[in-house]
C-alpha cells in the first residue's frame, strides 16, 4: 500500500530531472541563447508542476488509504467498486466535484469568500519548497528552512478565519473561531520543538539537519537524550492539531458543526480546501521525519557509507537517491498512517480540553524539555552514547506497554472471527 504510492511519487519527482533534460535535448546548443532571466523561472515552474503532481497523487492515494484504514479498523471493507479494491474511487469523486455547482450564499462577503481557498492553498503549497525527498531531489534547501515552515505555516489560519467570516453562516464562523484558536495555540509547542532541533543541529536548513543524523540509528535526534521523545510527542500532537485531524478535528466536527469553516463551500472550492489539508498532512509528517527520524537516512551506517561513495559512479548516485527517496517517503507515510489510525482510536475532544492540553500540558513540558536538552547539549556536546542508551531504555517501557495493549486488542479482535471449532 505504502510502496505503491512511493513508486508513483518516485516517478513524479524524477520527472523534474527528466523535464530539465528534455528541455536541454530539445534546445541543445540554443540553450545559451535563452536569457537566464527567462530560463530560471521556467525551471522553477517545472519544479512547481512536479510538486503539484505529487500533491495530487498523494491526496488521491491518502484519501483512498484513509477510507481503507478506517474501514478495516471498523471491520468493514470500504470502497470496493471502482477499480481494484476501490483504488479509483477518489478519482471518481474528484471528477464528481469538478462537475459540482459553485454556490455562494447570498449574504456572504463574496470577495473574501473567493479569496479564502486561495490563501489556504497558497499557505500550504510553498512549504513544499523545503520538503526534502533526497539529497538531489529537493526544490531548494533554504537557509532558513525550519523557520520558513514555522512562518508560512501560520498563514493558513488567516484563510480559515476568512472562509468562516465570509460565509456569514453560524456554523462556519464557529468552526473558524475554533480553528483559529486551536491553530494559533498549537503553534507554540510546534515552535518550541523547532527550536530544540535547531539548537541540536546548529542550523535551520533541512539538509543540514538530516546530515547531522546520518550514521547509525542512534544518531537520530529522537534518541538524542531522554527528553527528545517528549518533544517528539508534543510535536506530533501539535501537528495533528495543525492539520485539524482527529482528535483535534473540532473545527470541522461533522456531527456538531456540519462541516465547520467550509460549510458554505462547494465544488472546486471545497476540493481545494481538501487538497490543502492533505498536502499539509504530508508536509508535517515529512518534517517530523526530517526533524526526529533522520530524514532520508536509513539508520544503517555501512549502507549509508556505501551509498554516499558514489564518486564516478552515476548508477550508484541514482540508486542512492532512490533509496533515500523511498526511505523518507516511507517514514512520512508511516506517520500519515498513524494520524489516520488515531482518528479511529481517539474520540474528539472538547474545546476546553484542547486548550488544556496545549497550554497546561504541552507548553510547560516542551519548555522544560527544551531547556533540559540545551543543558545536556552544553555538558555533552554532540550527543552521548550513554544518554542515547538511557533514552531507549526509559522509553521502551511505555512503548512496549503500548505495543502489548495493541497486540492484546488485535489478537482479541481476530479471535472473535476465528470459528470456535464446534
Amino acid at each position, binding site marked *: 500500500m505504502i510502496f505503491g504510492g512511493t513508486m508513483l511519487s518516485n516517478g513524479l519527482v524524477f520527472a523534474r530531472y527528466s523535464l530539465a533534460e528534455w528541455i536541454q535535448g530539445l534546445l541543445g546548443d540554443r540553450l545559451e541563447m535563452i536569457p537566464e532571466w527567462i530560463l530560471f523561472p521556467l525551471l*522553477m*515552474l517545472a*519544479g*512547481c508542476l512536479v*510538486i*503539484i503532481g505529487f500533491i495530487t497523487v498523494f491526496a488521491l492515494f491518502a484519501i483512498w488509504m484513509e477510507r481503507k484504514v478506517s474501514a478495516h479498523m471498523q471491520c468493514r471493507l470500504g470502497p470496493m467498486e471502482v477499480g481494484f479494491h476501490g483504488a479509483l474511487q477518489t478519482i471518481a469523486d474528484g471528477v464528481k466535484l*469538478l*462537475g459540482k*455547482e*459553485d454556490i455562494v450564499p*447570498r*449574504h456572504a462577503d463574496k470577495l473574501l469568500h*473567493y479569496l479564502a*481557498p*486561495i490563501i489556504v*492553498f*497558497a499557505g500550504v*503549497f*510553498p512549504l513544499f*519548497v523545503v520538503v526534502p525527498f533526497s539529497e538531489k531531489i529537493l526544490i*531548494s*534547501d*533554504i*537557509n532558513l528552512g525550519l523557520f*520558513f515552515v514555522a512562518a508560512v505555516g501560520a498563514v493558513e489560519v488567516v484563510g480559515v478565519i476568512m472562509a468562516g467570516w465570509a460565509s*456569514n*453562516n*453560524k*456554523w462556519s*464562523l464557529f468552526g473558524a*473561531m475554533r480553528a*483559529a*484558536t486551536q491553530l*494559533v495555540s498549537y*503553534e*507554540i509547542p510546534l*515552535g518550541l520543538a*523547532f*527550536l*530544540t532541533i*535547531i539548537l*541540536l543541529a*546548529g542550523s*535551520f536548513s533541512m539538509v543540514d539537519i538530516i546530515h547531522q543524523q546520518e550514521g547509525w540509528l542512534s544518531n537520530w535526534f529522537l534518541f538524542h537524550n531522554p527528553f527528545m521523545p517528549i518533544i517528539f510527542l508534543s510535536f506530533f500532537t501539535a501537528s495533528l492539531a495543525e492539520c485539524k485531524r482527529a482528535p483535534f478535528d473540532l473545527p470541522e466536527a461533522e456531527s456538531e458543526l*456540519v462541516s465547520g469553516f467550509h460549510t*458554505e463551500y462547494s*465544488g*472546486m*472550492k471545497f*476540493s*481545494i480546501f481538501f487538497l490543502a489539508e492533505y498536502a499539509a498532512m504530508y508536509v508535517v509528517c515529512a518534517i517530523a521525519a526530517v526533524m526526529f527520524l533522520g530524514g532520508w537516512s536509513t539508520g544503517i551506517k555501512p549502507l549509508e557509507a556505501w551509498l554516499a561513495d558514489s564518486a564516478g559512479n552515476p548508477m550508484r548516485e541514482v540508486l542512492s537517491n532512490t533509496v533515500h527517496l523511498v526511505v523518507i517517503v516511507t517514514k512520512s507515510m508511516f506517520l500519515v498512517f498513524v494520524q489516520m489510525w488515531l482518528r479511529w482510536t481517539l474520540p474528539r475532544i472538547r474545546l476546553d480540553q484542547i*486548550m488544556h492540553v496545549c*497550554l*497546561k500540558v504541552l*507548553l510547560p513540558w516542551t*519548555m522544560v524539555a527544551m531547556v533540559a536538552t540545551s543543558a545536556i547539549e*552544553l*555538558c*555533552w*556536546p554532540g550527543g552521548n552514547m550513554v544518554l542515547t542508551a538511557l533514552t531507549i531504555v526509559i522509553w521502551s517501557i511505555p512503548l512496549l506497554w503500548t505495543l502489548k495493549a495493541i497486540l492484546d486488542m488485535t489478537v482479541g479482535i481476530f479471535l472473535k472471527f476465528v470459528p470456535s471449532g464446534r
Partner: protein
Amino acid sequence: MTMASMYFDYANVAVFFVFAVVFVILNISVISVILRPTVENDQKDTTYECGEPSVGSSWVRFDMRFYTVALVFLIFDVEVAFLYPWAVVFKDLRGAIGGSATGVFVFLEAAIFLLILFVGLIYVWKRGDLDWVKSSSAQEVDARQRQMIEAKDEVRL
C-alpha cells in the same frame, strides 16, 4: 551563502506562491466553470442552517476567552521568534568541549529569558485565565455581574 543564492532560493518560493494562486484561480474560475452546470435557484443561495430559514446574521460577538488565548499565543510567539537566533548560534558559542564560560553564559541568558516568561505563564494559569470552563465560584461572580450590567448579545460557544 551569497546574496544571489539567497535570492535564488526565495525566487523559488515566489514562483511557488504565484503558482499556487494561479492554480486555485484556474480551478475555481476557469476549469470548473466550463464543466459545471449553473442552475439559478433562489433557495440555493440561502445560508445553510440545517434546513431552517436562517435567523439573523452570523456576524455575532464572541466570547472574551478567545481573546485571552490569542493573547497568550502572541506573547509566546514573539518569545519563540526571539529564541530562534539564540538556538542557531548556541552550538557555535557553547564551545567545542562542554562547559565553556561563554556556553554557560549563553545558556543562562536564554534560561533567564524563558524563566521570566514562565512566571507570566504561571501567573495567568493561577489567575484562571487559561481555564476555558471557569470555576463555579468565578461563574457565580460573572453571573452576578451580568445581572447588574445588561449584556444580552453574547454568544457562548
